[in-house]
C-alpha cells in the first residue's frame, strides 16, 4: 500500500496537475507550477548527493580490493574532495574552485569533446562506402553536405547549382522531412509514456517488486 499504491496515487496527482495547468492561465496555477519546478530541483540536488556517494563507494571498493588500477581511484576521490573543499572554503564565484574548473575540468572536457573531430573522420572512412542503395544515399548526402558547408563548396558545381545550394536543399527538404517524421513519432511516444506514468501503467521508474 504505502510501498506502491500511494506513490502511484501521488504521481497521478502531481502529473494530472501539470497537464491541467498547461491550459489554465490563472495566477494561482502558475504559482503552484513554479513551486513544483523548484521542488524538482531540490529533489535532484539530494539525488545527486546519493549518486556521488555511490561513486565514492565504487572507488573505495576498488581501493579496498586492490583491483587493477586502484591507484587511479585515489585520483578520482582526491579530485572530488578537492573540489568540494574548494567550493566550501573558497566559494563558487572564484578562488581555487574556479581555478580547478577553468584549468582542469574545462580543458579536459573540451579536449574529450574535440576527440569527435578524429572520430567523425574514422567513422566516415569506414562507414561511408557504397555497399548498397541506402548506404550510397547516406554517403552521397554526407559528402555533399560536408563540402557544401565550407567555402570550397561554392566553387564545386553540380549542373546549374553549387554544392552549397545542393547541400542547403538537402538540409531544407529531405532532411527536414525525415526530422519531422521522427519528431511526430517521438512526440507521440513521449506523451504516451508520460501518460502511462501518470496512469500508473508504466511503473518501471519505481523499480520492480513491492
Amino acid at each position: 500500500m504505502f510501498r506502491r499504491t500511494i506513490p502511484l496515487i501521488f504521481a497521478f496527482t502531481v502529473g494530472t496537475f501539470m497537464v491541467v495547468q498547461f491550459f489554465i492561465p490563472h495566477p494561482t496555477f502558475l504559482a503552484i507550477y513554479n513551486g513544483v519546478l523548484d521542488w524538482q530541483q531540490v529533489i535532484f540536488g539530494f539525488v545527486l548527493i546519493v549518486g556521488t556517494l555511490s561513486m565514492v563507494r565504487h572507488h573505495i571498493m576498488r581501493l579496498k580490493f586492490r583491483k587493477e588500477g586502484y591507484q587511479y581511484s585515489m585520483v578520482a576521490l582526491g579530485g572530488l574532495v578537492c573540489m568540494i573543499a574548494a567550493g566550501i572554503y573558497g566559494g563558487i564565484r572564484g578562488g581555487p574552485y574556479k581555478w580547478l574548473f577553468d584549468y582542469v575540468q574545462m580543458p579536459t572536457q573540451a579536449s574529450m569533446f574535440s576527440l569527435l573531430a578524429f572520430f567523425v573522420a574514422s567513422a566516415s572512412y569506414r562507414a561511408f562506402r557504397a555497399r548498397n542503395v541506402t548506404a550510397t544515399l547516406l554517403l552521397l548526402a554526407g559528402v555533399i553536405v560536408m563540402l557544401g558547408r565550407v567555402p570550397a563548396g561554392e566553387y564545386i558545381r553540380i549542373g546549374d547549382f553549387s554544392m552549397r545550394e545542393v547541400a542547403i536543399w538537402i538540409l531544407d527538404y529531405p532532411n527536414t522531412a525525415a526530422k519531422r517524421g521522427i519528431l511526430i513519432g517521438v512526440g507521440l511516444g513521449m506523451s504516451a509514456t508520460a501518460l502511462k506514468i501518470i496512469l500508473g501503467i508504466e511503473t518501471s521508474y519505481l523499480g520492480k517488486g513491492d
Partner: protein
Amino acid sequence: MNNAVVVFLLIVATASFASLPVDLTAVDTPNDGGKAITLSWKSIDSIQMGDSLIGLSLMRTTANADTLREITTFTLLDSMYVDETDLENEIEYAYILRAQFPSVVEESNEATAISRIQWFNKERSAVLGAVIIFTTLLISFTYHASKGREMFIRRIAGLEAVEEAVGRATEMGKPIMYVPGISTMSDVATIASIQILAQVAKKAGKYATRLTVPNRDPIVMTVCQEVVRESYNQIGRPDLFNEDDIHYVTYSQFGFAAAVSGIMMREKPATNFLLGMFYAESLILAETGNATGAIQIAGTDSDAQLPFFITACDYTLIGEELYAASVYLSREPKLLGSLKGQDYAKAVALVLIIIGTILSIAGFPQFASVFK
C-alpha cells in the same frame, strides 16, 4: 467638488470631442492570468500627423481614482501596447492617448476595459483536443490489450541481434556493457532503455555473464539497480547481483564519456548496448567500442545522434523503434496496447496531414490554421 472629480469629468468631456482620430480600443488581454489590458490604435504615422509630433503618452484613470496617470510614452510608429502597470482585476479602467504638438495638445477617444482572470487558454484548444483524442486512444487500446486481445507488432530488425550479442559475450567470457543513455528518468528513451535492460539482464543472467551499467544520472542509476536485481531474482540467480557493477560515474557529460571509453578500452566488453537518450558523446562511445571490436547495438530517439550510431554500430534502433523494441521484447500486454494506441494516433496524424494538405491545395487553408 474636489479636483479629482473635475479632472475625471474633464477627460470624459474632451474624449467626447476627440480630435486625435486614432480609434483607441482597449480590451482585456485574452488567455492570461489577469492584470493586463491590451490597447491598440492607428499609429500617428498612419494618420499622417507624425511630422510635428513631440510626444505621445498613454493616460489612465478609474471611476473612483483621484488622479489621471501617465502610464507610458510611445513613438509615432507604435500602435499596440499591453498595460500591466499596477492593474487590478475586475475594475474598469479608462484610457486616452494624449499627443503633444508644437502648439496644441490633442487627445484621442476614451476606451475602457476591465481586466479579468481567464480560466482557459483558448489558444491551446487544438492541443487540448490532441490530448483528449490521444488519451482516449491509448486508454482504450491498453484496456483491450489487458483483456487479452491479440495485437500484432511487426518484426523489428536488429532485435534478433540481442540474443546473439549476449551469447557472444558468454562464449568469449567477457562482460556486457549496457549504457542507458545520459538523460533523466523522465525521458521516454531512458524508460524504454530500462525495459530493454530488464530483458538483457535476464538473458545475461542465464549464462551468468557479467553485466556492467555505468550511469550519468543518479536517479536512473537507482532504477537500473532495482531492475537488474529484479531480473536476476526472476531467473533465480540473485547471487549474481553486484550493486557495484551498476554505478554512478559523474554528472559531467564528457567526464562520463572519458570514463566509459576508458572502461571499454580496459575491460574490452564483447558487447556494448548503447540504448537511450544520447548527446554528443554518442560517437565517442561508439567509435571506442568499435575499436575494441565489440558488437554494438545502439538505439536512440535523438535525431541528431542517430547518424553516428548508424555509421559506427552494428545495429541501430531508429527513433520510435527503440520504444517499440522495449515492448516487443517484454511482450507485456499493457505496453503492447499503448504502442498500438500510439500507432493509431500516428495514423490519425498522418490522415490529418494529408487532408490538411489537400484542403490547402483546394484553397481552404483554414483547416490547417486550426492546429495553431
